């Protein structure tokens, strides 16, 4: 449904490398995630695929259409929700939706089924100007406007950034329903925990893809054993674990630390460098009641690991 081949894009006369030699494919009906921090190149990819920006090198197609030659066809068949709210602030909810429906030669009624679940949540405020809406309502309106012409492909650039946990959950539930309608969705997010909601993901950093596959496969590629180490005083624990000579990496994850050991040492290896060595080391430094268990890594662990290599 989407193909990208060796795409490169620079800004400022080549000084800023935004996207570097990126290739990927998104299948029909897939929910595909671009996961990475600011500056990873996510927005640039969206803008090239929605024909708003020309690549320096490489090719891309959306729904079988070339992003350069067939740009007009692409514009008719995709929905795009940019990261920055870009509806008309002076128009009401209803006027915005009507406007986008009319521009695409359709009406709200024609595709109402597709947006109904989302629209009914903002319908009580349909006479309110878009500029006066809260973040969550703007997000829902923008999604309705991107969907009103029943696009084959939906592009969502960081729809959940700055949004609270409850709204984020609701938003992903909406995406799952749209996917069930057969719409191919490409979505970007800086929240690593949202990666698991996608069929496949590309982990991105500084214009490059670090890894691309299903979340389960990426997690399965984690090269060493990962331990969750817990003690009531997380901050002191963090300092001490970092000092331990056998520690390879150590990062706080909520109320625990995620630790990898040098040489990929495992729990079976009871030497000074192993996990038994670490708990002894901590006990010797006054940290009692340390619990340490081997855990399955998450996407965020994998991202951190990939940044190292």
């Amino acid at each position, binding site marked *: 449904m989407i193909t990208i081949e060796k795409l490169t894009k620079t800004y400022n006369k080549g000084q800023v490398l935004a996207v570097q030699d990126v290739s990927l494919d998104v299948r029909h009906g897939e929910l595909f995630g671009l996961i990475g921090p600011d500056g990873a190149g996510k927005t640039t990819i969206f803008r090239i695929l929605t024909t708003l920006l020309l690549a320096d090198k490489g090719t891309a197609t959306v729904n079988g259409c070339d992003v350069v030659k067939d740009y007009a066809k692409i514009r008719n068949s995709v929905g795009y929700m940019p990261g920055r709210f870009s509806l008309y602030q002076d128009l009401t909810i209803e006027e915005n939706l009507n406007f986008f429906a009319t521009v695409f030669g359709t009406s709200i009624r024609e595709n109402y089924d597709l947006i109904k679940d989302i629209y009914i949540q903002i319908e009580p405020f349909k006479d309110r100007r878009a500029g006066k809406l809260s*973040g*969550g309502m703007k997000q829902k309106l923008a999604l309705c406007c991107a969907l009103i012409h029943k696009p084959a492909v939906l592009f969502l650039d960081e729809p959940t950034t700055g949004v609270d946990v*409850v709204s984020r959950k609701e938003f992903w539930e909406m995406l799952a329903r749209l996917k069930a309608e057969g719409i191919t969705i490409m979505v970007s997010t800086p929240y690593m925990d949202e990666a698991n909601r996608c069929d496949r993901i590309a982990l991105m950093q500084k214009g490059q893809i670090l890894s691309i596959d299903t979340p389960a496969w990426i997690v399965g590629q984690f090269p060493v054993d990962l331990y969750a180490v817990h003690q009531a005083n997380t901050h002191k624990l963090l300092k001490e674990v970092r000092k331990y000579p056998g520690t390879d990496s150590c990062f706080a994850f*909520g109320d625990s630390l995620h630790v990898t050991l040098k040489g990929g040492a495992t729990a079976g290896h009871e030497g000074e460098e192993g996990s038994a060595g670490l708990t002894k080391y901590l006990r010797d430094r006054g940290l009692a009641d340390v619990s340490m268990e081997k855990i399955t890594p998450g996407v965020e662990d994998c991202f951190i690991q990939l*940044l190292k290599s």
Partner: protein
Amino acid sequence: MEPVITTDKLTKRFGSFVAANELSFEVNKGEIFGFLGANGAGKTTAMRMLCGLLTPSSGKARIAGFDIYKETEKIKRNIGYMSQKFSLYDDLTVSENIRFYAGIYGMSIPAIKQKTKELLEELQLVNEAKTLVRELPLGWKQKLAFSVSIVHGPEIVFLDEPTGGVDPVTRRQFWDLIYAAADKGVTIFVTTHYMDEAEYCNRVSIMVDGVIAALDSPAELKRQYRNQSMEDVFYELARKAKRGE
């Protein structure tokens, strides 16, 4: 423990809408206090009052020992503030930004010189002193913005979603800076949408529909609500919100 923020029934109304309703809490010196809430719960309104930028409708509060009605200018001098959208000037160099903010806060020229030197060393930005901030990677900007926000040695620093958009390693390095500042006695008042970061706080409050629905240490909140993570605690409380954001 010595409270540096105390509020008593602090309330802000906009017409008939009660944005923040009778907030009463204390934050202690050197504490890392997480201020959580759904979008529209009233966090921004509360934070603006605490920073002396918005006059409350009723209730009392003292920030760094100063009254929230009468001594707002003193409050502003004794707090630091950093938001997600950096307050750094892109067109100034790293050292110019430090000098600018230190100057705004009325530091003397020798003190500014000394502080600039210290900060550049601490942040390992000595070689970048003459680099325009625009050219710095996001993570460095963030660290610089934090350091600049406490350049004048405030008692409290307010961090409004400071870690948005950075990679997972940089985000955690940023928390190292927060811990280091707290160890030196700076009180940290922080908002975030990353629930794992809520776990890094000493205590956390969760606002729902203008009121503080819960306030305790993350461990205690998880125990009270019988949840595995702060994300679950937050979800359980915030989904009951009636306010249409």
